[in-house]
């Protein structure tokens, strides 16, 4: 199986005041197409930093990141923005929906960047909401939904432009056990049936069980790789 993500000697440092702090120290990693990877590790180990680099939200200090054959580490900020729109879906711990928009409109938001017609956009939105099991809730505002439902709207938003890659930063961190299981099952379905490659940061070993394998990050370095 070919690699979707290929990372070589990746370092990332932040400048804090006058000090330069290296968070990732020469990380090398391959993630094949269709994989579902859980990324675990103590708080502050650099999980979010790594995920943000993979998702093209930030640029590395040195090293290579290629995704689907494209060297995104060489992209300018503007090029990264365009690339994200069609290649990555994001899911965050706190859902990050627009409170002023209905579920439907939230899901439609990324499609405003495409040249799809209004009718096509509506159709794609309906499908995405169907996939996450919220076909009936399109007209509701986020505050009229439960946490689990909000997260599923966020997942619908992440998949509506049909990217190959989903990056999820503690997607169940704010949910109770049962709701978390539902969301994780949904991610598993997206991975198995829709072929999405998923990289998911989590604290929770039970959440990691849903992934195909788990990577452990500690102090900016990868530890052993456990397969499930």
């Amino acid at each position: 199986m070919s690699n979707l993500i290929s990372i070589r000697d990746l370092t990332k440092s932040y400048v804090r005041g006058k000090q330069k702090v290296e968070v990732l120290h020469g990380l090398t990693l391959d993630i094949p197409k269709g994989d579902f990877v859980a990324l675990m590790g103590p708080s502050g180990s650099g999980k979010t930093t790594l995920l943000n680099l993979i998702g093209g939200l930030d640029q590395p200090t040195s090293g290579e990141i290629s995704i689907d054959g494209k060297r995104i580490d060489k992209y300018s900020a503007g090029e990264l923005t365009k690339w994200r729109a069609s290649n990555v879906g994001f899911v965050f711990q706190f859902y990050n929906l627009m409170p002023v928009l209905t579920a439907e409109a939230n899901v439609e938001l990324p499609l405003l960047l495409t040249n799809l017609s209004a009718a096509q956009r509506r159709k794609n939105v309906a499908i995405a909401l169907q996939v996450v099991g919220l076909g009936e809730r399109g007209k509701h505002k986020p505050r009229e939904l439960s946490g689990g439902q909000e997260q599923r709207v966020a997942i619908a938003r992440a998949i509506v432009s049909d990217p190959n890659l989903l990056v999820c930063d503690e997607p169940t961190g704010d949910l109770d056990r049962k709701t978390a299981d539902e969301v994780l099952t949904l991610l598993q379905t997206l991975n198995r049936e829709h072929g999405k490659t998923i990289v998911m940061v989590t604290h929770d070993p039970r959440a990691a069980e849903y992934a195909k394998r788990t990577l452990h990050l500690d102090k900016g370095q990868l530890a052993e790789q456990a397969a499930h």
Partner: protein
Amino acid sequence: MTKTGFVIANLFRKKTRTTLTLLSVIMAFLLFGLLQAVNVMFNAGADFVGATRVVVQARVSFTQSLPLRILPELEAVPGVEKVMYQQWFGGVVGENQQVFTFAVDPARLHAVYPEYVMPEQQWTAFGQTRTGAIVGRVLADQFKWKVGDKLPLKSSIFPQKNGSKDWAFDIVGIFDGKDEQWQRQTNTVFINYDYFNEANQFGQGAAGIYMLRLANGDVAQSVTEAIDSKYENSPDETKSQTEKDWQAGFVKQIGDIGLLVRWILFAVFFTLLLVVGNTMAQSVRERVPELAVLKTLGFSDTSVLGFVMAEAIALCAIGGLIGLTLATLLGIVIQKVAGAFLPISVDGSVWVAGLVAIVVLSLAVGLLPALRAQRLKIVDALAGR
């Protein structure tokens, strides 16, 4: 959903706050529209009155009357073609509606001010009717006066011989202005000097001020110098100047009001800047994570700037257009009830100034929050840094 829909939805995320802000924008532009109209009126100046007339008044003050007996002497000054005089009557309609009223010799008014136009038979009637009065078009429209009407007019100055300050005149003519600018000057009543002079209790033979029509503008200086030197050191010292300069004297006083109006406008807009600016800044501050999500989804820095800018423009434009519309409507009402004394009209020039103000205000209140949104770094914003 469209991008416009998204902007509007965001604008009303805090309904109360947006409504209150919108109300202050509306109020400010209502005030702006009206004050700007007043400003235009004050700046209209006297540039349309020619330099071919000279005004002669008492040196001490224009409220002091010059005597009638100097009339032939003024007529004899070389370069002077026609002379008229006018006495301020201090006319009041009803309880306290002031109207500009002057006692004049009808034939002399006609000769010196050809800019006032009226059918010839009405001029004749004015000359022949002792209690006759002619009223300007603006006043006639405002008070619905017609030829043949009785015109009850109180004088704030002159009692009749019987002691009463309530006078009555017969409207024998309605005059217009020869062009648009002179139309606006038709907020005046003229009454017959002879009747006024006989019937009033004091001040017989007082002419008030003189207006002299010259052969041409070139003699203005020699005429004014000749007159003023002639009466120097006499009991009736004069101050002569062209009508243009004379008007400019008033306009200068009024100009100070214009300056005051501009200061008020400045204060209003400064306050508005703070109010709307604060709303915009707050609205951007409280949705930093949302703006970061937009960027995450693939909206460029520039389009995020655009979203915030569009909100500022929408806020200012909605409020501004409503405010200017209200000002226009209110201007029409004011024109109807008090057009003679406050000839304001919220016209095209006021709208142009208003639209410029909307653009400037939008930029001023939108730019900083919009730039902040543009510069926002996704990873920092998402992590709440």
